[in-house]
């Protein structure tokens, strides 16, 4: 393992192939908010980094859907979900969802209402209703039947195209401050968050400053996983030997539930973490805490960390009383750790199962030690 960590090559980051669709993605193209929002920010009107569309959406939809949101989220403050978005990405996703719902209802509602009405009106016993057993076609009816759905799909397609590009998880979020870089490694049954600029890493908690974009690179050192923080934004797969990207931001301080959504074994249900948005000052002191108060993450400890274990078990292994419950801090993280993890799957020889985290052989090897 030590050797493979050393033989890292960062150039792999743009290497990404999808059966038949080979593509290379470069980072940092475009921005999530449009020019309009930049102007708004300069003029000092409106909240930071929100488009006008978004302002409208959040105000009106909060009002419109307050009831359903309360109903769905219950009174538990713990539930930070997509229904109560706390960042620009999830807010726009949330807005888009309700927009689609309202537009699609134009074609759906007539069926929900019409079927019971038709069934009752034309019931067998109702001799007052007209009966036309041989009527089987009407050009006048055919036009709206086809054209209304076509129009709806056309409108939805325009929105889909715009928002899919605007909300591309690879797209970095425009901001005055440079984004915080976080490298995320999926391990069986926890996420390892590496902060390459601070040489620290965490399990069970991902802290970052509020109102500052977070730019994540993701991979796994085991089977495929999928990373999501619903209250902040969507989801992206993390796959071994490959790097995917996700850009998020939190509008406010708070704790947001994050998880893996792709089943990966017995501990899958425990693969949750807290995404914690804090003030920049708090973030600086948090970094210092981790730097001074973490376990060293060297190849040996990484090897133990990588075995199949939940965040709570990682805490029991590496944590101490100063670290919060189920959360583990690491320091002395090598700057090429992430690239090394990606590159180890690109060698000429197979990675033996005993060296591949998540396999039965790997866990057995560690258990026997």
């Amino acid at each position, binding site marked *: 393992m030590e050797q493979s960590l050393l033989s890292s090559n960062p150039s792999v980051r743009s290497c990404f192939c999808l059966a038949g669709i080979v593509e290379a993605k470069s980072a940092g193209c475009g921005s999530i908010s449009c020019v309009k929002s930049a102007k708004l920010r300069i003029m000092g009107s409106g909240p930071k980094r929100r488009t006008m569309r978004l302002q409208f959406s959040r105000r009106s939809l909060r009002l419109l859907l307050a009831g359903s949101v309360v109903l769905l989220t219950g009174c538990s403050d713990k539930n930070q979900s997509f229904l109560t978005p706390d960042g620009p990405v999830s807010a726009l*996703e949330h807005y888009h969802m309700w927009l689609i719902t309202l537009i699609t209802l134009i074609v759906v509602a007539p069926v929900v209402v019409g079927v*019971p009405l038709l069934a009752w009106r034309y019931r067998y016993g109702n001799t007052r209703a007209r009966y036309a057993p041989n009527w089987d076609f*009407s050009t006048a009816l055919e036009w709206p039947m086809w054209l209304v*759905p076509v129009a709806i799909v056309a409108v939805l397609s325009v*929105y*889909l195209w715009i928002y899919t590009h605007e909300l591309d998880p690879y797209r970095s979020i425009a901001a005055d401050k440079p984004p915080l870089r976080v490298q995320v490694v999926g391990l069986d049954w926890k996420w390892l968050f590496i902060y390459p600029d601070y040489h620290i890493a965490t399990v069970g908690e991902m802290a970052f400053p509020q109102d500052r974009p977070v730019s994540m690179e993701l991979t796994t050192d085991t089977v495929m996983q999928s990373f999501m923080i619903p209250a902040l934004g969507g989801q992206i797969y993390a796959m071994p030997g490959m790097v995917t990207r996700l850009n998020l931001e939190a509008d406010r301080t708070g704790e947001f539930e994050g998880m893996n959504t792709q089943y990966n074994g017995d501990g899958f249900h425990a693969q949750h973490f807290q995404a914690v948005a804090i003030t920049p000052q708090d973030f600086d002191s948090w970094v210092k805490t981790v730097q001074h108060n973490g376990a060293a993450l060297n190849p040996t400890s990484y090897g133990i960390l990588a075995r199949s274990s939940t965040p709570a078990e990682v805490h029991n292994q590496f944590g101490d009383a100063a670290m919060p419950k189920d959360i583990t801090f690491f320091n002395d993280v090598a700057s090429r750790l992430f690239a090394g993890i990606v590159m180890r799957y690109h060698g000429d020889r197979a990675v033996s199962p005993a060296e591949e985290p998540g396999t039965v052989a790997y866990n057995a090897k560690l258990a026997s030690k």
Partner: protein
Amino acid sequence: MSHSFWSLVFGRLDFDSLDFLKAFFHPDLNDVIVSGASWVVILGAVVTAALLTWFRLWGPLWSKWLISVDHKRIGVMYIVLALIMLARGVLEGVVMRAQQADGLHGGFVSADHFAQLFSTHGTIMIFFMAMPFLTGLINIVVPLQIGARDVSFPMLNSLSLGLTVSGAMLVMISLVIGDFSTGGWTAYPPYTEPDFQPGAGVDYWIWAVTLAGLGSTLTGINFVVTILKERAPGMTLLRMPIFTWNALCTSLLLVFAMPPLTVAGLMLAADRYLGFHFFTNTLGGNMMNYANLFWQFGHPEVYILILPAFGVYGEVIATFSGKRLYGYVTLVIATMAIGFLSFGVWLHHFFTMGQDADVNAVFGIATMLIGIPTGVKVYDWMATMFRGRIRFSVPMVYALAFMVLFVLGGLTGILLANPTVDFQVHNTLFLVAHFHNMLIPGTLFGMLAGYTYWFPKVFGFRLNDRWGYIAAFSWIIGYFLAFMPLYAVGLMGMTRRTVSYTNSAFEPWFLVAGAGAFFVTVALVTLCVQLYVSIRDRELTRDIGGDPWNARTLEWATPSPVPAYNFPVMPHIHALDAFAVAKEAGFGYQEPTSYSDIHLPGNTWAGVIAAVFGTALGFGLVWHMWWLAWLSLAVLAVSLIARALLGDRHPVKIPATEVRRQYRAWLEKVRAVTPVTRALEWDHRNCGVAATEYFEEAAE
């Protein structure tokens, strides 16, 4: 020495693999459930065998059913398989709902067992419930609707059934011996690679799905050829009933969509058995290729499941509205458009894999396009009801519930087609709620409607309507309660395939879903009761005339149950809905002017051999009993080649006089029956001959 000998015989099968013994060694609730399930399978098999022996039914079972090539009997056997697997699939679903209802407190099922449950539930419901059910209905109905004697390749039909059964057998055996896969019904690598899952589970999945998939491919070929080549004279393509059109589209999809699954499964098998690196993490393997291959099957598969149900609804809504189907040509165009588009949208199953926004947007828009013909279909069915005379019989209740519920699933489908929303709800219970919303009101209700609708045609008596209504409403209420809450918890961030959770806000929703599972269980039990009561009271619901619903298509012009040769003479078709037109003109039950000898294909052992040795082949491969695998493969190969060389050695000839005698006897019985109006449809006076009804035109 002796150890290596036994491992040669039994491969990697050992004492610990015997699930039915687990409860005796680890008597906790989880293992009691595991062992209990295997005992149910074992006892079920023993009791069935005992009953067959007691009633001396082995002989008839063998000669009339197992070796039969009659498309109707093969269809019935498919549906029997589907109903057995439905029972298991539903019960697994109920256990999962119960587990999650208690999931905040950890529940009672272990994480590994829960993973096996969702994997077998999905695999069974797709491959061994829905697929056999729709294949069974297509088998029974299509040759009758197009006026054919049988399918084009009757022996192949039996072989397809045998392969499907062998896949189902492997899934059932996995309940008794060894564990099933924990990789879900999609079995995504690298999780399913041998380094991560060395046990027998994934191998059970691979061979069950591969064998059944081969059977489905052959079925597809069989029915494409049958529909294109075996139609009665005069039945042009645009005179085919709408169910047959949907069956044609489904068969085309089977031909083109099943091979990618077989390829993906065999590539995964190559990784697992032969050390290949198609989908491994290292040496250039890439699981993204699997995802693409799997969903190139997986998305058309969705339409394979739904289109036959659309066909059933088309027939049911027209019949029970007492009207011609509105927009027949439109529906045909819409069906074929759906079939065509279904091959161009597979990527929407992994918008989250990191591809470019352009790619995601194109596939998202393509997905929404499918909503257009599907929406048009729903409107056409509504227009069919417009100015009809609607009878709320059991199939119609399913159809009405389907239309209302299905469009809600359509709405969430449009949401999922948008990558922006998919990023949030992918892999959550929102997705689970969506596809159950499509597959329960869509496929399952459609299949049950078809089962109720065509049951008298096959068995000569109607199903009990009272229990039918109870079953239908239990399914509808159960579906609604069990799956609507999953939309909510999905939006709240509950991932799918999750054994337990810590967020207390989820719990009320899961309790409601658990109540829904109770209603679904009631529905399942009610279906069994309905079948029992219907058989017991069959003399009260005899379908002598063969047309209990005053239906429109050709199959209703035959006696119930239909004779092996289907039609005494080949019918000549002059119109769409030929039987309805003939009845209106008063020519519903005409005697042909002349009869001729009828030649039918002989029985074959192919299906039984495929079922037995297909199962043995799969079992041998799963447990690395190489001798068994080679032996089974050899038997399969030799028997198929021998059958090909020898041909059909026992064709059946039915002399014209015999056909005439049978047909005249039936016509006499029909003439003795009093035709009834639709008001008496569910009355014991309905003996299957419809009275012509004239309604006064109501004033505008």
